[in-house]
């Protein structure tokens, strides 16, 4: 099916009445989402067919694993790969998979089965070491099998032998997850463990900056109070009653304080390490404890910490030694784990990793701009390497009041699969709930520790590039100190040969990791894609949301090495070339002036424009460097759904009886309406000046527009308006990795400016084309390419 979507006459574009585009463009972004929802939402999507395009990320449906990994785990930019590299070059469509190996599955879908082959361990192809999976072809009556990836013929181990039925399928096909499912887990043997020793259960270490600003803001007290309850919700295996995860506590300013909270102590013991130049762990026994056992000592400690430092006037902090200490502690305890660091300032104290304020706006839009995104010192890189080598994941909660050099400080977090949270000008009463919600979520997250991922492919193509919160020591092994349910790795593939159209393109992603309870496991995701020598097949099978994820990550990675201008140009020209190739080879002949978009890429231009307008790719001195570095880092580990929402926020007219999303454009706002916008990091409630008072009363419990204070939190009012708004917020918030803080933007007031940045179809606040302008520009490029 080919769609002849909006027809634009480039020469006249500016003279046309605006409303005309309005109707044309309206079809695009929102309609595509709504159409998919209408046709596939609420249904069961079975993964039994190779190369089928899954429902959009915005569409809710139940996914049934029938031989290929669920799109929750793997999404691809194209589900039908071009059969040759020439063809791939011609189409310019990136071939990539976005893998989220630990994605959360809704309760109505089956969790992963665990296969245990005992001491022999998982069955693997002798040559390419791929794991037993539905792509293995059993032959010779079931005595041998041919590897679907490298075609090597392997013997079936005797214990695994099974007869074949009349269609050549093993009779136990449906009894074994590894033969019939796209995703499953193996229990790993000692060979897969560090030093051939079974791993210890992981540990979480809480490291709290107790310098002056954090004490004064009340943050330390907030954290300590929260920890007393949140530690009851440490993640645990489904069948376990309590969590096996041990916890430890460190506070620090210019020096580090470790705490002994052994259960048999009457009171906690504090050990100060002031040798920050060569930091070390002063204790082993009693540092990492089971929270349930040491509850009274831990609570005693958490009560005391805010008191202990109440009179502090220490404002300098260290940072790298803190990570180092946490890592050494985990190393000494021989376990993997996570650090939770709560930090607020630029680490200026004399110590390794000391940072200075190097935020230089003059570098923006020059060839040296990339320096701002690179770490100040290489200590953080080597620290990251050590952390990864020791399975130490660093979660960083930043509470800056000014520049803190996120590019340097966030680096270890980025490389170790951790999450970076940033709360600017943190105020306990207004930002506390958001932070606590993030903290609770982060602590409770299902996680794989000390993980290593390997992506295997069938012959003809291979994984060439990886993007995400990962560390690569070589070209094939993706190392992650930890990988949680929100982290996605984007993998780019390239041809190295012709692909076979019959056998398709097969991908197996295997993640070796340590589970929450300290079991070594392998998580396997398999997906089969089609191959075709027809460009039309390729264009038909594309997924724009995945493409944007790839483009965003590759552009954000390129920032480290290339000037912004080049990156922007590449994005525009690649978009144009993808579309031109389609126009030339797949579309039916039509006037040159017509812009013809493939059905699957109808929304590509609008998304590319949004990406180009993201603050990372916009070099303007008004945008804080830290904010850009922060966004860059967040996007690098986002999955398809996250990038979709992040680049094109959802805008809902709350004032409507049944709010359906509208385009992010000022045109859609009305003075009498209330609009809700969310992008995964922020939420806005925009209020038109003539919003009906009953709506205002209903939501804010105040009589009029003028009474609404933008400082307050959203009150819980027992009223259908309030309930509706809050249920919408809850829904949007659910399954999002970051908690969003609601900002209230009243029309024609200061806060509205912030809100307007997110109206991505309009001309950007800091420059950046409107959607229409961008479309013209792309069209012009396409015309040039075609002529």
């Amino acid at each position: 099916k080919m769609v002849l979507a909006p027809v634009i006459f480039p020469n006249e574009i500016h003279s046309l009445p605006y409303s005309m585009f309005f109707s044309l463009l309206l079809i695009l972004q929102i309609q595509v989402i709504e159409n998919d929802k209408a046709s596939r939402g609420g249904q069961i999507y079975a993964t039994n067919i190779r190369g089928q395009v899954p429902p959009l990320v915005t569409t809710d449906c139940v996914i049934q694993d029938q031989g290929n990994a669920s799109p929750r785990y793997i999404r691809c930019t194209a589900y039908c790969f071009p059969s040759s590299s020439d063809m791939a070059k011609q189409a310019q469509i990136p071939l990539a998979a976005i893998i989220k190996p630990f994605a959360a599955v809704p309760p109505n879908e089956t969790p992963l089965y665990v296969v245990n082959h005992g001491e022999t361990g998982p069955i693997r192809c002798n040559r390419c070491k791929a794991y037993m999976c539905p792509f293995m072809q059993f032959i010779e009556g079931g005595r041998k099998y041919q590897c679907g990836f490298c075609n090597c013929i392997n013997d079936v181990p005797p214990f695994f032998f099974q007869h074949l039925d009349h269609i050549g399928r093993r009779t136990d096909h449906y009894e074994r997850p590894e033969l019939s499912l796209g995703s499953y887990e193996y229990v790993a043997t000692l060979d897969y463990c560090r030093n051939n020793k079974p791993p210890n259960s992981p540990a979480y270490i809480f490291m709290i900056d107790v310098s002056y600003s954090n004490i004064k803001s009340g943050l330390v007290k907030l954290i300590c109070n929260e920890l007393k309850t949140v530690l009851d919700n440490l993640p645990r295996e489904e069948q376990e009653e309590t969590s096996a995860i041990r916890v430890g506590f460190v506070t620090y300013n210019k020096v580090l304080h470790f705490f002994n909270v052994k259960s048999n102590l009457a009171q906690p013991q504090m050990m100060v390490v002031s040798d920050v130049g060569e930091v070390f762990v002063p204790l082993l026994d009693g540092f990492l404890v089971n929270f349930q056992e040491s509850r009274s000592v831990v609570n005693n400690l958490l009560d005391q910490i805010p008191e202990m430092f109440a009179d502090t006037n220490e404002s300098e902090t260290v940072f790298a030694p803190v990570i180092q200490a946490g890592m050494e502690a985990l190393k000494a305890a021989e376990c993997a784990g996570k650090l939770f660091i709560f930090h607020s300032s630029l680490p200026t104290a004399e110590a390794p990793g000391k940072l200075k304020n190097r935020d230089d706006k003059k570098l923006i839009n020059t060839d040296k701009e990339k320096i701002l995104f690179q770490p100040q010192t290489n200590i953080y890189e080597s620290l990251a390497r050590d952390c990864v080598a020791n399975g130490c994941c660093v979660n960083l909660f930043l509470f800056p009041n000014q520049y803190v050099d996120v590019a340097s400080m966030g680096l270890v977090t980025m490389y170790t699969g951790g999450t970076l949270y940033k709360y600017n000008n943190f105020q306990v009463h207004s930002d506390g709930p958001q932070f606590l919600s993030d903290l609770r979520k982060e602590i409770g997250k299902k996680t794989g520790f000390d993980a290593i991922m390997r992506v295997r492919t069938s012959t003809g193509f291979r994984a060439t590039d990886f993007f995400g919160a990962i560390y690569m020591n070589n070209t094939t092994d993706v190392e992650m100190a930890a990988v949680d349910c929100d982290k996605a790795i984007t993998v780019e593939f390239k041809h190295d040969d012709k692909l076979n159209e019959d056998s398709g393109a097969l991908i197996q992603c295997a993640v070796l990791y340590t589970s929450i309870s300290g079991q070594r496991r392998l998580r396997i995701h398999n997906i089969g894609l089609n191959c075709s020598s027809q460009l039309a097949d390729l264009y038909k099978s594309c997924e724009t949301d995945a493409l944007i994820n790839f483009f965003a990550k590759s552009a954000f990675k390129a920032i480290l090495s290339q000037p912004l201008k080049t990156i922007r140009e590449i994005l525009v020209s690649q978009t144009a070339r993808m579309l031109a190739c389609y126009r030339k080879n797949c579309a039916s002949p039509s006037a040159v002036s017509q812009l013809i978009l493939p059905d699957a890429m109808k929304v590509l231009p609008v998304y590319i424009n949004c990406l180009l307008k993201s603050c990372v790719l916009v070099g303007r001195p008004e945008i804080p460097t830290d904010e850009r570095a922060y966004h860059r880092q967040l996007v690098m580990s986002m999955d398809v759904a996250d990038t979709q929402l992040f680049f094109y926020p959802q805008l809902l007219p709350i004032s409507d009886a049944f709010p359906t999303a509208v385009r992010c454009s000022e045109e859609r706002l009305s003075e009498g309406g209330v609009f809700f916008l969310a992008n995964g990091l922020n939420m806005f409630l925009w209020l038109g000046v003539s919003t009906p008072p009953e709506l205002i009363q209903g939501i804010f419990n105040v009589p009029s527009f003028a009474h609404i204070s933008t400082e307050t939190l959203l009150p819980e009012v027992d009223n259908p308006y309030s309930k509706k708004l809050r249920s919408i917020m809850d829904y949007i918030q659910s399954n999002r990795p970051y908690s969003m803080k609601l900002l209230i933007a009243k029309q024609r007031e200061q806060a509205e400016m912030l809100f307007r940045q997110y109206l991505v179809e309009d001309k950007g606040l800091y420059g950046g084309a409107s959607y229409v302008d961008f479309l013209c520009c792309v069209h012009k490029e396409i015309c040039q390419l075609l002529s």
Partner: protein
Amino acid sequence: MATYLEFIQQNEERDGVRFSWNVWPSSRLEATRMVVPLACLLTPLKERLDLPPVQYEPVLCSRQTCKAVLNPLCQVDYRAKLWACNFCFQRNQFPPAYAGISEINQPAELMPQFSTIEYIVQRGSPTPLIFLYVVDTCLEEEDLQALKESLQMSLSLLPPEALVGLITFGRMVQVHELSCEGISKSYVFRGTKDLTAKQIQDMLGLTRPVVPVQQGRPLQPQEQPPISSRFLQPVHKIDMNLTDLLGELQRDPWPVTQGKRPLRSTGVALSIAVGLLEGTFPNTGARIMLFTGGPPTQGPGMVVGDELKTPIRSWHDIEKDNARFMKKATKHYETLANRTAANGHCIDIYACALDQTGLLEMKCCANLTGGHMMMGDSFNTSLFKQTFQRVFSKDFNGEFRMAFGATLEVKTSRELKISGAIGPCISLNAKGPCVSENELGIGGTCQWKICSLDPSSTLAIYFEVVNQHNAPIPQGGRGAVQFVTQYQHSSTQRRIRVTTIARNWADAQSQLQHIEAAFDQEVAAVLMARLGVYRAESEEGPDVLRWLDRQLIRLCQKFGQYNKDDPNSFRLSDSFSLYPQFMFHLRRSPFLQVFNNSPDESSFYRHHFSRQDLTQSLIMIQPILYSYSFSGPPEPVLLDSSSILADRILLMDTFFQIVIYHGETIAQWQKAGYQDMPEYENFKHLLQAPLDDAQEILQTRFPMPRYINTEHGSSQARFLLSKVNPSQTHNNLYAWGQESGSPILTDDVSLQVFMDHLKKLAVSSAS
């Protein structure tokens, strides 16, 4: 006239001084011919119940190079209110306060009985004593428990105002903060990294941030407590806290795998202790008390690696230059000891372990600072517990028997110069007209620092007669020496004790018999022994023995009466008669013999030998032996194998050991249980008597001796057998007849053989 013996005793009791010669040869040449140098043992703080201190400043000679203290030997012109210094002959005006003096109204320091006098003086504000415990936690559970209890107990013995601190160490070093409530807090240091004093103080937060002085605003008087207060607190304030803290001390938690020694960071722990005090309380009386249960195994100052399969160095290794860590470790501890001494602090070492603990390397810490050294098998022994308790013993005035930060200055009349001192001191490098170029011991100075001393601390001080032969001293001329000891009393008062003595000069050619008669052979033996032990620390053992022998032969040649080449004619006068015997036992003593002793033991023995007073030193050289029998009251007997008889009980005191030895028959009777039968009550009394006597010694001795109760044929009997003169050995047993004594299985020469050789050499015209 009283005998010289009485004279010597009197002088010792009054002044705590004993000279090798009590009549001095008047010329340099003659003096050198006396063989035994002119020297004395000085016990600066000898307990004097009859000496109430005076509460004013001493009067000093006004000559800048002299500054001797006014003393009974000075000539006083009461009318002109002038006094002449007896050292430099400077005439001085009395200070105004002395306006009222006259022949009848004399100040104490001019009265002859106050040749030793003590002044209490005002010097700044008094600072409390400081006790810093440095505790090894790599101990067995039982040992640690015992140590913890001893430490807790000690808190009740400390003066309530004293400051106390705690450092513990194992793999890491922890400096405990004492002022915190609700949470126990400590600063932790890596055990492998040596830090400078500055770094330590920075890391402990002891350096005050520099507060910019605002113009026109005077500096605020110190309102906040001193910064060191986090680590050093008055006992009365934190004894509960510290008791709890000590109670909660755990063994070093770091795992020790099989075949390894625990990692023990003694070197860094001491360095931190020294650095902490250095920055906060320089020149204040302070004891760093190290309790260690094994050798340092890591970091600076490590003595042995952590592999158990490599044993700690032995004398054999040292001779073969196989002691890998010794030099480096010794250097580390020497540096620390010198810094500590410079700050006026002292380091005690309480080492309890079955194997060596590195005392050899660490000895200078105690030796140079006047600290105690104690060696035992376990902290869970009365040996340690009582020794430690005795550190805090009090004198008759209820004051601690410890003094701090002393400087000893010696002044001599111009015929004498000072060669050096041997004892628990370091040189202050004070050059002066009375400093000799010929050094004996720690020389080149007339002032020494003694960071810690007690009433028995004794220094040997060596002099040189510099008067030329052709400048005779007028008849009746006397030589004088003044000892000025300034110190911090345990009550934190500053005190100055001044002892001024004088001895007659005599012309050695015409009056040799006077000089001879005034020879103090006991102190001479100890003074020579100190020289020998001092040499043994740096020279090869055999060289020292040869030197001692040569001195002995020369002395015999000089003072013996004999016919040339006729050994049988050799005689020594009474004042010399015991001297060769002392030398015989000294040669066999653990101070000079390293055979059968570990390097640690040698260090321990030498440490004590170089600081004890005359009586104790003599016991160390020649242990005393008492015999108990039915035939009469206990009697001292010869330290000879012939004294070991079947029906006797022997009590031997070697200073380090108290041995009770039951003869063969006594042991059999005891086994048969006669002592429990009413009709043999006297046997019971006989058994009890040496026990009571031993108890008496045990109660006063510091350090507590090892107590051995043994009997004939028991392996422990070796303690006795190795000490007695082997007059009967398996070689000569039958030649000596039947019954008496018991043979010693040894190839050592007996006193008899030794004396025979000595006589032969002394009378030989060839030498």
